[in-house]
């Protein structure tokens, strides 16, 4: 998330430049201010989400994020809290803040609770939360800071300040951020050598919760209980970068797919078998790599499976046309063989399909006989009776 070094900045809203003490609040703000549907007042999760929601649900076009600064109202940029802010804007903001209030202190980036679910040790949060109350007892490398829970806007601290006191907290047993506030730190530990690995004086600690939270995971969150089905799918389809969506509303896209699939099938119908068309890889909507758990050919799992030798041998009418197939003794009694064993690699799919297609046509079983039908140059078709 290009945001790691941003540690010391308070969360701020890209749309209106407002700062918040807590990213959670920021998200609430964004949902209420910028991502709320003006028609049904539903709070969406991102700008694209909003525009797709309006398009799909209300057939209304939203091309500007409401209440946003000029130039910051793009509905195509997907921003959720601090996620997704364009790098340059981040830098700029950082610079501005640095200029404005370089002397203020207090890295106060409250993490939200999401972290817990990420399985990260909560300790980094503790640094943060625990900090304010402890300073008095803690002689830091710098002077103790006054407790300052909610940071005044623009509060930007020298990155190292808070670090000193934080050091010792690392090793503590994980605890909910909530409790942290009360943790008094034994001052003495403070400057001890054992430090949490990510404690680096002078360097802002890596933002621990961010990387663990893939950008979209938040968007995916609305997932169920909250009627988000539609939103989700829409979110996906709407944002330009993703193309996985089913999108009835975009006939163009659909047309393309059909076109391609129909050409593909017509090709395979006329040409010698080349195997089934290949399924295109799904593009991930979430920035994650995604993996379609399906064979590559665009045929059904059943067709693929039926082409396995162990099943082919059961199909009456298997004939010799399929080169590449081991000669099969026909009609072994069913449920023979070891069904749990994975059969050897099947011959190329196309072959099988063709074999299947052909042997059907003859009616009476013609085991091991050359296909009598249309002469030697008969072109078998994939999948039998395709026209």
């Amino acid at each position: 998330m290009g945001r790691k070094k941003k540690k010391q900045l308070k969360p701020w809203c890209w749309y209106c430049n407002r700062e918040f003490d807590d990213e959670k609040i920021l998200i609430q703000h964004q949902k209420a201010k910028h991502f709320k549907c003006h028609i049904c007042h539903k709070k969406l999760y991102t700008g694209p989400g909003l525009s797709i929601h309006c398009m799909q649900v209300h057939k209304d076009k939203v091309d500007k994020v409401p209440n946003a600064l000029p130039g910051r109202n793009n509905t195509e940029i997907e921003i959720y809290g601090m996620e997704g802010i364009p790098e340059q804007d981040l830098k700029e903001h950082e610079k501005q803040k640095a200029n404005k209030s370089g002397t203020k202190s207090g890295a106060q980036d409250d993490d939200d609770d999401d972290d817990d679910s990420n399985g990260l040790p909560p300790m980094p949060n503790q640094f943060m939360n625990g900090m304010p109350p402890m300073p008095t007892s803690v002689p830091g490398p710098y002077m103790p800071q006054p407790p300052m829970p909610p940071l005044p806007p623009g509060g930007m601290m020298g990155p190292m300040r808070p670090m000193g006191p934080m050091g010792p907290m690392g090793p503590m047993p994980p605890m909910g951020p909530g409790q942290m506030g009360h943790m008094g730190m034994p001052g003495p530990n403070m400057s001890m050598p054992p430090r949490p690995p990510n404690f680096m004086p002078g360097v802002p600690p890596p933002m621990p919760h961010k990387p663990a939270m893939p950008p979209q995971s938040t968007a995916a969150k609305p997932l169920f209980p909250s009627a988000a089905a539609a939103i989700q799918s829409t979110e996906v389809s709407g944002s330009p970068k993703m193309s996985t969506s089913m999108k009835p509303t975009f006939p163009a896209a659909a047309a393309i797919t059909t076109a391609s699939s129909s050409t593909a099938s017509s090709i395979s119908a006329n040409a010698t078998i080349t195997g089934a068309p290949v399924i295109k890889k799904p593009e991930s909507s979430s920035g994650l790599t995604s993996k379609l758990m399906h064979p590559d050919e665009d045929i059904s799992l059943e067709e693929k499976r039926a082409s396995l030798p162990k099943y082919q041998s059961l199909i009456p009418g298997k004939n010799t046309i399929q080169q590449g197939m081991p000669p099969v003794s026909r009609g072994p009694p069913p449920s023979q063989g070891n069904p749990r064993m994975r059969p050897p690699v099947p011959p190329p799919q196309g072959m099988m399909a063709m074999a299947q297609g052909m042997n059907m046509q003859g009616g009476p079983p013609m085991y091991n006989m050359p296909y009598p039908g249309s002469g030697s140059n008969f072109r078998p078709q994939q999948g039998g009776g395709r026209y």
Partner: protein
Amino acid sequence: MGETPNEFQLNNPPADGISAVKFGPNSSQFLLVSSWDTSVCLYDVVANHLRMRYNHPAPVLDCCFQDAVHCYSGGLDNILKVYDFNTNSGTNVGTHDAPIRCVEFCPEVNVVVTGSWDSTVKLWDPRTPCSAGSFSQPDKVYTLSVCGDRLVVGTAGRRILVWDLRNMGYVQQRRESSLKYQTRCIRCFPNKLGYVLSSIEGRVAVEYLDPSPESQKKKYAFKCHRIKENGVEMIYPVNSIAFHPLHNTFASGGSDGFVNIWDGFNKKRLCQFHRYPTSIASLAFSHDGSVLAIASSYMFENEEMKYVPEDNIFIRNVSDQETKPKS
């Protein structure tokens, strides 16, 4: 991950992948199960006992009850079979030119519907039983669902066709799947307003049959059956959808091994069960919605899989709390 008090595993599960589980029309006692081990089994769920079993020559991809004592099944052998549990005898009803992927019974029209990779849907009159017509589809049939007297067919190439079972002379609606990936399963709302469609890419769409813009506006889709692990989002096929017959809520089962229950009209997830040992291949609610059958059966999604997990059927008693829309 252990079993919960309201759930148990069926004894004697099929020896290979489970392709479909279906409850009988009027009781939650009997469960029909078709399998890649070429069998169709009838389980007495109450006694947890395998009651009856017959075989096809090849793996069976789907099955359905016609009434309490008859069932239909079809699979890789291209043969549609009817089986009479009273006489314990099976008859071949007819064939497709390619494996039969779907078998459904439509009580309203009293017709059995099969969908096949030969790109046709065939209707079968259960009284004779004999073929009552073949209707070509734009591509291999992957899934179908009946909805009153309507039939919704999902084919390869992401096409959706809505047929009127009373007049199969023309296609009532041709649609394209609103999902970008291969259609995995379609099931119609019991209230006949629409259907739910799932794709191999962890996504489910709720769609309405009424073509008017007001109704069409309500359609939507959502992501599900995805797991984030080590920064990688794994996206699983949504293999199965089953509607609660009374509440119009539905369960989805994915290759991630999870079963979710959704309130499609209110866009809410009602609950998620524990993770099952492997892919959810099929789901079925009993006629009164009190029991959910969950087939957990590896489906060869992942080619690197070293060993094949066991195939199991879980019978779960579900409460209104889990399945009723929270209003």
